[in-house]
C-alpha cells in the first residue's frame, strides 16, 4: 500500500528529508549536539538547571575502573547501565533487582557480576556508540513503575516523548515496552507508541511497527484508556529542556517514577517521525503555527499556554 506524496502533504506529515533540512538543519546548532548526544552531559546540565533526572550512581570511564564497578552498584535496588553516547536503546542493561551476586533483568534472566563487567567493557570500547568511538558507561537508578501504567507496559518503564519546537510543546506520545522490545521503550525494537493529547494527556491512538494497534500485544489492555498523570508538570519539564540546551527542534524523553514523579530521561536532537502516526496527524501545521507566532512568549508557562490553546487534537 502506497499513497501519493500530495496526500501526505495535505495531512501535514513531516518526512525524514524535510525534518533533516528544514527543522534539524535550521534550528539545531551542530555544536550543541554533544549536550544531548552525551547523556552524561545532559544529566549534569539538567541538574544545574533544576530538572529532575534519575538518580546518578556514577560513571565508568576507563577499562581499569571496571574491576571496582561493584562499589558503584546499589546493593538492593535496581539500576541501569547505559552507554553515554548510545541511541535507539542499544547497550542498555536494565537490572530489575539484585540478590547478592545475582542480577535479574526484567525478563527474569539472571546475570553475574562478570556479565555486568563484560557489558560495561563493551560500552567503554564503543560497541554501542556511533562510529564505534570510545564511550562512557552511566549507572543510574532504575525508575519504578507508576501504577497508572499497570498493564500498559510489559516489563519496561514507559517513556513519554514530547517534541519541543522553539520551546513550545508540539506533539506527545508515550512509548510502552512489549515482550518484543525487551523492557526498552524504543519503537523500532517493537515498543508500542501511543499518541497523547497535548491538552489533556489522554491517549489518542496507538501504533506498533508503524501500523495502528488498539490493545497491548502482551497484556491485552485497551490502549486508548491510557491517561498520563502530572501532565502539566511533564510539559513544564519538557519545555525546560529547550531553555537548557537551546536546541530548536528537540525530543524530550520523560519517565514517571512511582515516588519521584516526572523525570527527564534523555534528550534527542533528531527525534523520530513515528509520533505522527501515533497521533494520527501530521506535525507540520503545528510547527508552522509556531513559526508564525507574532507575540513573544517570555516564559515556559506562556509557551505551554499557547500550545494548549492552539494544538487541539483533531481526530
Amino acid at each position: 500500500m502506497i499513497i501519493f506524496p500530495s496526500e501526505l502533504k495535505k495531512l501535514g506529515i513531516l518526512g525524514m528529508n524535510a525534518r533533516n533540512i528544514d527543522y534539524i538543519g535550521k534550528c539545531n546548532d551542530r555544536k550543541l549536539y554533544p549536550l544531548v548526544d552525551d547523556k552524561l552531559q545532559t544529566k549534569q546540565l539538567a541538574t544545574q538547571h533544576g530538572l529532575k533526572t534519575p538518580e546518578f550512581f556514577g560513571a565508568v570511564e576507563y577499562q581499569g575502573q571496571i574491576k571496582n564497578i561493584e562499589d558503584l552498584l546499589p546493593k538492593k535496588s535496581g539500576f541501569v547501565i547505559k552507554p553515554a553516547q548510545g541511541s535507539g536503546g542499544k547497550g542498555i542493561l536494565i537490572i530489575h533487582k539484585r540478590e547478592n551476586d545475582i542480577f535479574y533483568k526484567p525478563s527474569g534472566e539472571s546475570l553475574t557480576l562478570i556479565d555486568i563487567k563484560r557489558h560495561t567493557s563493551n560500552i567503554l570500547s564503543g560497541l554501542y556508540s556511533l562510529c564505534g568511538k570510545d564511550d562512557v558507561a552511566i549507572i543510574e537508578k532504575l525508575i519504578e513503575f507508576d501504577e497508572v501504567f499497570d498493564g500498559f507496559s510489559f516489563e519496561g518503564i514507559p517513556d513519554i516523548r514530547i517534541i519541543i519546537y522553539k520551546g513550545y510543546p508540539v506533539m506527545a506520545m508515550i512509548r510502552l515496552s512489549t515482550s518484543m522490545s525487551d523492557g526498552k521503550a524504543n519503537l523500532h525494537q517493537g515498543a508500542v507508541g501511543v499518541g497523547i493529547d497535548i491538552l489533556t494527556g489522554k491517549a489518542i491512538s496507538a501504533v506498533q511497527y508503524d501500523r495502528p494497534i488498539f490493545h497491548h500485544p502482551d497484556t491485552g489492555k485497551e490502549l486508548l484508556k491510557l491517561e498520563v498523570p502530572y501532565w502539566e508538570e511533564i510539559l513544564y519539564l519538557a519545555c525546560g529542556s529547550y531553555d537548557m540546551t537551546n536546541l530548536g527542534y528537540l525530543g524530550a524523553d520523560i519517565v514517571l517514577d512511582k515516588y519521584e514523579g516526572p523525570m527527564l530521561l534523555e534528550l534527542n536532537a533528531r527525534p523520530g517521525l513515528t509520533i505522527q502516526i501515533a497521533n494520527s496527524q501530521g506535525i507540520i501545521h503545528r510547527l508552522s503555527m509556531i513559526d508564525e507566532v507574532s507575540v513573544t512568549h517570555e516564559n515556559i508557562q506562556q509557551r505551554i499556554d499557547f500550545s494548549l490553546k492552539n494544538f487541539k487534537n483533531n481526530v
Partner: protein
Amino acid sequence: MTSKLQIYLFSFLLIFIAVATMAYKVKYLDFPLFSGEDKSIFNIEAKIKFEGTGENAFISLALNEEQDEMFVYNESASSLNYGYTTAQVDGYKRAEWAKRHIRGTQTIYYSIDVIEDSSYISQKTKKYISSKPLDMNSIMTQATIAIMDDAEINSADDLSMTAKLIEKFAKEEPTQAVGLFKRRYIHSDNDLRNTLVTLLKFKNVQVRRLGVLKLKDGQKNVKLTPMLEIFSKNRWQLFDIHTGKIDRPENLFVWQRGGVSLLDAEGVINSKVSFSISENAISSRRAALLKSSASEISLMDFSLFILPNESQNAFKQLLLIPIGALVVVLLRVLIGVKTSGTFMSVLIAMAFMQTQLIPGLIMFLSVVSLGLIVRSYLSYLNLLLVARISAVLIIVVGIMAVLAVIAFKLGFEDAITITFFPMIILAWTIERMSIVWEEDGAKEVFMQGGGSLIVAVLAYFVMINPIIQFWTFNFPEFLLAVLGVIILVGRYSGYRLSELYRFASMVKKK
C-alpha cells in the same frame, strides 16, 4: 531562501562546467563521447630504392606539407648508417640522406602516421610559387590557343575553365588540337597533368602540381597520383586530371605540392620511390589523445593520461567511487533504503567489480554468515572490543583462505578473487551485524544487511556500466556534475519513497 538559491546556483554551475568541458573536449579535441567509436590511422611508408656506384650518395625526398583535415604525427626515417636531416628547400620541406661510397642496392624508409580529422587546420600559410611556362614550338602554340580559347569561351571563371579543359582531354574522341597534344606529349598521367598545367598557365591561371596518395589499406608500392590545384576565389581547389573537380577530398593525402621534384638522387643510379599504405583501427580516444598531446593542448597536460599506465588503472577504480556514492545518496534520500554503515555498500560494490557479481555475492554471504556463527561463540569469551574485532578479522582471513582453497579444488578458479573483499570492512560488518542481531533481532539484520547488499548490487551495476566507466575516466570533469547532483539531492526535502508506505495507514483512516 537565499541559501537555497545559492545551492541551486552552485550545483547548476557545477553541472554546467562539467557539461561544457565535456562538450569542448568532444567538439574541439575530438574526444569520442562513447567508447565504441573507432578511427582509422594510416601509416604511409615511402620506400626509396637505389643502387650505389661507389660514389658519395645524396638522396633528397620531398616531404608532405601540412594539410587541412589531416593530422600527421610520428614522422620517422629509418636508414641504417645514413646521415639524415630534414631541410627547407625553396620553402618546401625535404628529407635528406647522405653517405659516402655506396655500393649495391640500398633501401631507405620514411614513414608517417596520418589521422583524418575534420577539425584540424594546418598552420602553414598558403603560398604560391610560380614556375616558368614551358617552351613550345609554333604548332603547339596554335594548338594551345585553339584549346584554351574554346575553353575560356565556354566557361565563366578559372574553375569552370579548368573543368572544361580536363573534360576535353578526357573525351574518347578529342578535337584535333587535343589529339595533337595527346600524341606528342602525353604518355603517362604525369604527362597529362603537366600538359594541363602548361595550358592553364597560358591563360594565367594560378595552378600547381600535386602528388597525391589515396589512403586505402593494403596499398603496396604505389606511386603518387598526379593531380593539380588551382587558386581561385581565395582558395586552392583540387582537380583530378581525369574526372575534374574534387569537392570533398576524402582519403586523399597530398604528399608533394608545387613544382618541386619528389626525389633527387646524386651519386646513385636507378633510384625510385614508392609508397605503401596500411590502415589500423584505433579507438578514437587514442586518436584524440595522440592529437592533443602532439599539438600540446594545455588542457591535456593536466589530464589523467599523463600518468603511467598502472596508476591510470588504479584511478579508473577510484573515479568510480563517487558514482557509487551517488547511488547510495539517491537510494537513501529518495528511496529510503536502510543500510548498515553509510558507504560500506560502495566498498562491497568495488569488490564485486573484481570478483564478478554472483561469485562475489556467494563469497560475501558465506564469509559473513560463517563469521556470524564464529562471532556468536566469541561473545561467550568475554573479550574486549578491539581484541574481538581483531579475532573476527583473523577468522575472516581464515574463512577466506579455506573458501578459496575449497573452491579452487572444486574447479572454481574465480574463488581466488575473494581477496578483493576489504577484510576490515567484512570484520566490522560481522561485528555490527551480530550486535544488531542480539539487540534488534534477526529481522533487523536482514533489513540492514539486505539493504546494504541491494545498494551494493545497484552500485555495482552502475559502476560496471561501460558508458559510466568511460566517462569518469575520459571526462573526469563528469564528477563535477555528480557532485552537483549530490548537492541538489542533499537539499531534497520531499518525501522518501519508503515514507509513502510508512505513513500510508494515516491516510487510509480518513
